[in-house]
């Protein structure tokens, strides 16, 4: 078998894996080498993801929906493990890459010196996230979840300090419990259906014997609980603000994608297994997802209003974002207008990028208020990392002029995108969801009206909360402006640039999301494709 372009599907998993393993060999002092390897690996992963995205668009011949398959070990689909790159997973891969590059650049300005093996753990996190997006098998999904969680435990503790260790302790405990729930759910699903392959599951559910169905539903519900914990859905979200606040800035920026992994899995599995064609199971879980999503948005918007610091506010915005996408997904699953899904995907991409930019902005913005001094004092006592003090002094880099203006503009862009105000992309996503909810007046129930109200309220709360912080930082500031390195502000500007591109090219991007949501609503294409995926060694398979 000669390596061909079909092997590209596994590249987003293998590149970070090898890069991370390679960097373990390097000494901690060779930061420049590590940084180079890390950057090259992330760029290569991003390129592979973009190529997969282009491929997944397919042609008119394949109905603009080209699903790529990769049979690991060349076993036929329901028996072996399969990787699937369709429109949705390719999109999530690209978003991950787009977040990783700025986060890494930001870390290069100083954070990667504050502890050991930052770059390796960062790569392993990417490997886990990419793997979770690509896998077509439930147990493999568990393994990739554990990879990304193990890396995230290390990254959360990166830099050390009492606050991080305490936040990390809670984070690890709740995620270990979540993983155990995941395992219970997986084994129940296996016990009821005899398969772990998502595509196979999608085919089996409509014809499942009635005696097995309650067991299967119980398994799916327990498994869903595990994903909802990861997505930070109320009331399983109390760990999230503390953990995200405690993390170092580039880590928190990268964590913005982690709740979306949970959201992605719920959307993927719900539409695949409980879609319209699922017989007696159609729409299972939709009420829970809608209620949970709406409760999360409400909790998040109250949290935004109540937060005293920008870090806690950003963490609550993560909740608002994942709650909105989940509730929108629930509405579509319950048979509402499919247009909501396309807008929700657009909102997902836009809000993830904006939150990531906001997390990167927190540190430069709070620098002048002595916030950074507190942060550093916290970091200093852990693991005897005293060398950092000397590292911090000769920080010669290009400090940017007009710091406050650049910071203020970037912050303003984040506010616009997150609150869903024109002209940035958040507006398009939000207006799309609202339009979808309100179209066909007859179908608009009290539930969708309350979601409309919540969406608008959450935008308003975001605006109030963030503007309050902005006024305190930029207008009420006195004296000299903070010193901000170009390397710290460039990633933020890059992320905002992506938001701008997302907005200007909205016809292209939104069109992609629309086709993606259409593909999601036709799970049979996915299911049949996976089970009929051709093996490379078809000829020799007879023995």
């Amino acid at each position, binding site marked *: 078998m000669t390596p061909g372009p079909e092997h590209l599907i596994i590249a987003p998993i293998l590149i970070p894996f090898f890069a991370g393993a390679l960097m373990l060999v390097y000494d901690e002092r060779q930061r420049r080498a590590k940084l180079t390897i890390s950057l090259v690996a992330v760029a290569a992963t991003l390129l592979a993801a973009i190529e997969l995205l282009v491929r997944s668009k397919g042609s008119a011949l394949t109905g603009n929906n080209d699903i790529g398959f990769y049979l690991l070990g060349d076993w036929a689909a329901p028996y072996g493990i399969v990787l699937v790159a369709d429109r949705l997973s390719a999109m999530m891969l690209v978003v991950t890459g787009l977040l990783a590059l700025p986060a890494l650049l930001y870390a290069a300005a100083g954070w990667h010196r504050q502890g050991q093996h930052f770059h390796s753990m960062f790569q392993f996190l990417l490997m886990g996230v990419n793997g979770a997006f690509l896998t077509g098998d439930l147990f493999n999904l568990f393994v990739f979840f554990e990879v990304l969680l193990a890396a995230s435990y290390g990254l959360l503790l990166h830099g050390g300090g009492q606050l991080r*260790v305490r936040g990390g302790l809670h984070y690890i405990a709740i995620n270990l*419990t979540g993983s155990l729930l995941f395992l219970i759910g997986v084994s129940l699903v296996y016990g009821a259906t005899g398969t772990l392959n998502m595509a196979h599951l999608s085919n089996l559910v409509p014809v499942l014997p009635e005696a097995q169905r309650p067991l299967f539903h119980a398994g799916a519900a327990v498994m869903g609980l595990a994903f909802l914990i990861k997505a930070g859905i109320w009331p399983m979200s109390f760990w999230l603000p503390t953990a995200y606040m405690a993390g170092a800035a580039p880590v928190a920026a990268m964590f913005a994608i982690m709740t979306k992994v949970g959201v992605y899995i719920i959307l993927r599995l719900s539409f695949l297994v409980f879609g319209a064609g699922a017989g007696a199971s159609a729409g299972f879980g939709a009420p829970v997802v809608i209620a949970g999503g709406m409760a999360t948005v409400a909790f998040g918007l109250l949290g935004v209003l109540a937060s005293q610091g920008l870090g806690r506010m950003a963490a609550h915005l993560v909740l608002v974002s994942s709650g909105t996408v989940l509730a929108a997904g629930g509405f579509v699953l319950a048979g509402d207008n499919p247009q909501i899904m396309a807008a929700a995907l657009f909102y997902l991409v836009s809000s993830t990028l904006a939150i990531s930019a906001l997390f990167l902005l927190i540190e430069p913005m709070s620098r002048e208020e002595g916030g950074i001094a507190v942060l550093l004092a916290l970091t200093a006592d852990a693991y005897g990392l005293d060398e950092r003090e000397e590292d911090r002094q000769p920080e010669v880099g290009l400090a940017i002029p007009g710091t406050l203006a650049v910071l203020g503009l970037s912050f303003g862009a984040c506010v616009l995108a997150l609150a869903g105000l024109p002209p940035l992309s958040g507006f398009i996503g939000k207006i799309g969801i609202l339009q979808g909810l309100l179209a066909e007046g007859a179908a608009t129930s009290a539930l969708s009206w309350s979601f409309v109200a919540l969406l608008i309220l959450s935008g308003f709360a975001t605006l109030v909360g963030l503007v309050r912080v902005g006024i305190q930082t930029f207008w009420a500031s006195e004296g000299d402006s903070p010193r901000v390195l170009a390397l710290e502000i460039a990633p933020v500007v890059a992320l905002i640039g992506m938001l701008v591109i997302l907005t200007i090219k909205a016809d292209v991007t939104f069109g992609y999301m629309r086709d993606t949501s259409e593909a999601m609503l036709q799970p049979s294409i996915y299911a049949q494709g996976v089970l009929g995926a051709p093996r490379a060694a078809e000829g020799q398979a007879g023995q």
Partner: protein
Amino acid sequence: MEIVLSAAIGTLAASGIWLLLRPRTFQVIVGLCLLSYAVNLFIFVMGRITLGAPPIMPRGGFINPAAYADPLPQALVLTAIVISFATTALFLVVLIASRGLTGTDHVDGQEREP
């Protein structure tokens, strides 16, 4: 057989959950261990209980699957054991770091106000 296994799983899970909700970090980690034992047994049982049957089929010929144990849950349990072992070890390190930094073994890093 079924009743013994399910009673064992239930006891392990119940003790694990109770310990998980305790305020001391050591109790939490023991609780997580017990819970993971319960979950591992549960996965094993979900492949249906077969007594005295091998999980691997011999090569060639027609094979009656009913005469063999389901190998998949066994493979899953093996993976789950390894992963939970590794994450428990990591949790132990964080636990000790937390004890060292805060001087208390309370999960919140501080004793509750009297």
